[in-house]
């Protein structure tokens, strides 16, 4: 199985390359990709240099253009696709069916992958995207169980790629409006879930308070591991209780299920984390590369060290083993 690794900057790209990535995915520095954070991502020139560097080492570069086009501003997304093709992207990762149609028509030879943001979660949806736009691979949503991943992969009209480690979105991806409701900015169109412009951290004594827009997302007590200020992992007052209604601050880790995914015919394993630093990319990619080559009984020990890098310093198998409330 291929190992698909994240890079938010050219420095992170180089780390992923050194650490053993088969392919590296990255995005342009604008709202065309779903990790549109300040100071992150690639200029056109940086992307060209990264692709050239990867190609010299036999590593492919995928460009994520995985937000949804804003009416009247479609040109921004069309230009991103045109530039990705001109720069030599080995695949473009798209979510918007309109943009897929544009790409298939204008650049029929370009390899097209379906982003997790497209939330393609049944054989009919995948067949539609494969037949209609020539999609060669679909990144499956993180709301499926392992059995569903296996069943879907057997019936899929194209290759499947599965997230195995990193940040965990627990919603129907590409369709979640929680952050939009709190901030007026959309993860799906502006490329920012919990945009930094609306996030505030403050210290209330030894308690860390995270706020998103007008809402307090969480209060982390002294010594308690912190998480991202996302509503889906916020702590809520519900009736008389206080707790996590959707999911705890936690990261995804299903590396103990690699053999199940392999047996199911999954083509590629994906690591989340374009917003993370190069040290994270280096540590996670190199560790997972070692784990892939190790006997099953040694994998847990190898990947245990990654827990300290994770949100909330905890990991979960999430929906893949569906134990949540």
């Amino acid at each position, binding site marked *: 199985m291929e190992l698909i690794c994240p890079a938010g900057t050219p420095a992170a790209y180089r780390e992923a390359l050194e650490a053993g990535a088969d392919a590296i995915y990255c995005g342009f520095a604008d709202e065309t990709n779903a990790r549109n954070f300040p*100071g992150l991502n690639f200029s056109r020139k940086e992307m060209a240099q990264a692709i050239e560097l990867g190609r010299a080492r036999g590593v492919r570069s995928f460009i994520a253009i995985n937000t949804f086009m804003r009416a009247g501003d479609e040109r921004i997304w069309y230009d991103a696709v045109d530039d990705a093709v001109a720069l030599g992207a080995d695949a473009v990762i798209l979510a918007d069916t309109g943009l897929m149609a544009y790409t298939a028509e204008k650049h029929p030879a370009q390899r097209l992958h379906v982003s997790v943001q497209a939330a393609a979660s049944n054989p009919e949806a995948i067949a539609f995207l494969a037949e209609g736009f020539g999609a060669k691979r679909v990144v499956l949503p993180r709301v499926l169980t392992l059995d569903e991943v296996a069943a879907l992969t057997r019936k899929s009209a194209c290759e499947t790629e599965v997230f195995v480690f990193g940040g965990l979105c627990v919603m129907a991806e590409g369709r979640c409006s929680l952050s939009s409701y709190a901030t007026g900015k959309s993860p799906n169109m502006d490329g920012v879930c919990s945009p930094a412009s609306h996030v505030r951290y403050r210290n209330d004594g030894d308690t860390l308070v995270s706020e998103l827009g007008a809402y307090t997302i969480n209060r982390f007590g002294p010594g308690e591991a*912190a998480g991202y200020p996302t509503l889906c992992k916020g702590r809520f007052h519900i009736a008389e209780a206080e707790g996590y209604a959707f999911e705890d601050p936690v990261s995804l880790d299903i590396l103990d299920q690699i053999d199940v995914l392999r047996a199911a015919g999954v083509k590629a394993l994906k690591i989340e984390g374009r917003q*993370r630093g190069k*040290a994270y990319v280096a540590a996670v990619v190199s560790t997972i590369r070692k784990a892939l080559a190790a006997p099953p009984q040694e994998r847990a020990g190898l990947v245990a060290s990654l827990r300290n890098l994770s949100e909330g310093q905890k990991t979960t198998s999430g929906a893949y083993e569906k134990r949540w409330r």
Partner: protein
Amino acid sequence: MDLSPAVFRLLAPLPLAAVEGPARWALRAVLDRHPALLDRLGAHGEKRFAFLPDDLPFSFVVTPARRGLSVKRRGIARRADVEISGPFFLLLALLEGRIDGDAVFFSRQITVAGDTEAIVALRNAMDDSTLDLPTDLAAHAGPFAPLVRHGASAIRRRVLTPETR
């Protein structure tokens, strides 16, 4: 590795100018060697970033685009858009991108407050800049370059944990 309380006590009586001079020199050395850092910061380069090492008796307020740096004594009010606190050597390791900013935030080793956009932009700009303080400072040290490189490298070897070396 945290600085010892003895170092804190030793440095506390120093006049601010004795700290500010070398700190400004170091800032210029880094910015001269890594101009792309300001490109990634964009408009956030005009913001005032306060670094508050837990184990030093000083705070440092940096305005990158103006190449400005001022030093205040710990506890003295300062005007800043952003405040980043943590152990001194941890902040330096972050500067060099040797550790992941989110990870040390999750583990509560650093705290941040203020303009989160500016904090995120600074983190990403530093992370991409491949700073190497011994090399960067030595490049600005003229005839003392070998001494600075050797000294800074020796300190770094001593204070970094095996996983960040």
